[in-house]
Structure formats: C-alpha cells, structure tokens
C-alpha cells in the first residue's frame, strides 16, 4: 500500500473528535482496512492519555501574583512615561551632567599648613578650657545682673502704700 494514502496526520484530530464529518468518515473507512494505522492510532491514544495524566502544577498565590503583575504594570508605565517626556530627559540629563562636572572637577588642593594653625588652635582651645576650669565662677557672674535688684529690696518706699 502506498504510504502517502495513510491519513497519519489526521489520527490525532480523529482521536480528539476534531475532524469534519466527511474527513472523519474517510479516516474511519481507512482504519478498517489498515492494521498499521490502527496500531498508530492505538499508540497515539496511549500517549495522549499519558499526557492528559500529567498533574496540574501547584498553583501560586493568586493574590500575590496579581499584586506583582500590578506592580510591574505600574513600573512599566512610569518607565514608559519617563522615556516619552523629552523635557524630563533634558532636565535629567542636564542634572546628571552638572552633578558629574561638580563631582569630577579637579579642585586646587592646598597643602595643609598645620605648623602655623596648630598653635593658634591650641591657644583658643586652651583659653576655653581655662574658662571651663572655673565654670563655677563663670556661672556666678550671672548673679551680678540681679545684684541691683537685691540692693533695692532694702529701700522699698514704705510710703508708697
């Protein structure tokens, strides 16, 4: 028998009942006379049953799935809007360039003159430390402001009543 006449590629649709009536009738008629195609059909039936028996995958958390999808959509929108705004691009590029220039620009670096500054710093610091050493006295100076008030306490005009 000429193999070109075997409806091999129609056997899966035949099994799945997806052929038009006239083609289905032709395939059925052929199967009655062709042991080879019957065997092929039987093999296909086994394989399709095995494939149908593959269990479904464990389902993800659909709430989380949709939340991720929503976040991706929002991110893509922001990204798309950013790229579509020429003003934003221009401003962003300008800012980036300015920042780059500011960061990379070589600034004249003077050698540290610690020899001349250090004594002055030490003197100022020492003076401050000396004041702090007599902090209790410094604190009492505030009382001088109130001295006049205390003196006048004795001369409150009695006749003022």
């Amino acid at each position, binding site marked *: 028998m000429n193999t070109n006449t075997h409806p091999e590629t129609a056997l899966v649709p035949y099994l799945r009942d997806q052929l038009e009536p006239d083609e289905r009738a032709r395939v059925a008629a052929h199967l009655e006379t062709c042991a080879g195609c019957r065997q092929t059909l039987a093999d296909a039936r086994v394989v399709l049953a095995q494939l149908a028996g593959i269990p479904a995958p464990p389902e993800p958390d659909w709430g989380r*799935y949709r939340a*991720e999808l929503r976040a991706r959509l929002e991110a893509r929108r922001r990204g798309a809007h950013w790229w579509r705004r020429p003003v934003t691009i221009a401003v962003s590029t300008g800012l980036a360039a300015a920042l780059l220039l500011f960061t990379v620009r070589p600034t004249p670096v003077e050698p540290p003159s610690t020899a001349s500054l250090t004594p002055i710093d030490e003197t100022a610091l020492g003076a401050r430390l000396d004041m702090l050493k007599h902090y209790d006295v410094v604190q009492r100076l505030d009382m001088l402001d109130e001295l006049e008030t205390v003196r006048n306490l004795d001369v409150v005009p009695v006749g003022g009543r």
Partner: protein
Amino acid sequence: MSSERGEISDEALYARVAARDEAAFDRLVERYQGRAYRLAWSLLRNPEDARDVSQEAFLRVYQSAGRFRGDARFSTWFYRVLVNLCLDHRRRRRWWQQPVTQDRDEDEALVERQPAREPDPGDRLAEEETMEQVWEAVHRLPPQQRAAVMLSVHEEMSTADIAAVLDCAEATVRVHLHRAVQALRRKLKP
C-alpha cells in the same frame, strides 16, 4: 457583547482595556491567570519562569490592546503572545542557563516526590516515575511540537485554533502533533 452565560465576553473586556479600563484588565487577568500559568509551566517547567513569563504576557496584551482587531478572538491573541514568550524564553535559556535548568528540574523532581497520601506508596512512586518520564520526553520535543501538544491536550484547542496561535497552517499543526506523538511513543514504550 456577552457570552451565553450572560458574562461579558473576553473581546468586550479587552476593548475596555484598550480604553484603559483597569477593572476590565483585572477581570481578564482573573479569567486567564490559571490557564496562562499552567501553559507557561508546561512549556517551561519552572514555577518562577512560568510566573514571570505569564505575567509578561498580560503586560504585553495590556500594552497592545489598542492594536487588537475585533474580528479575532482574545484567547487566540493572548495564547499567541504567551507561547511566543515561552519559546523565546527557552531559546534564550538554552544558551546560558542550561545547567541551572537541569538543577531546577532535579529540584522539582524531588518536590514532586513528596510523601504520598495514597495507601500504596509503591504504586504512587511508580506513577510519579512514569510522569517524570513523560515530562522528560515532552521536554525533549522541538518547541513547536511541544507547544502544539500542550495546547491540544491541556488547553483542548482544535488544530485550527492551534494554527492561529502558532501562526502556521493547520496542516502544519497536524504534522507537529503526529510527529510529537510518534516521538513520545518511541521514548515511552516499555
């Protein structure tokens, strides 16, 4: 436009998505998320990749909603996007992620061999081993054959619909299915 059950059709929802109706998009996602994830998982066989690629398919259809022609079915449009993404993903992964993929497959095999709830663990183990063999055989099919088989068996699509998804002739789909079944039979024959 509504279905026989009185629900709004996919195509009507998608038309609303084109007008940036977020609620319509959410409803489409809820309708298709299970099928999308399952198909991506069966083509990629990795949970993370399946989640990533199926979400990407939703993003693509959202972005291209304005270009959808009303005379086509949304499901065909969506599956075409999804299957193309899966096939692209596999092509890219083949170059630089194959060792990782093999590790993942081994991990998945371990996960799938969790303690059985059935009374006879021996039968359960044999069944899982058979499933593992089926998966390995399916995994080795050429991408187009694999996609055709999965769309036919798991999504119960007709050869005409598969042809629309894969963007090829219906006769080509028949050849894909026939060759896939033959190859699987050879590999799975006891």
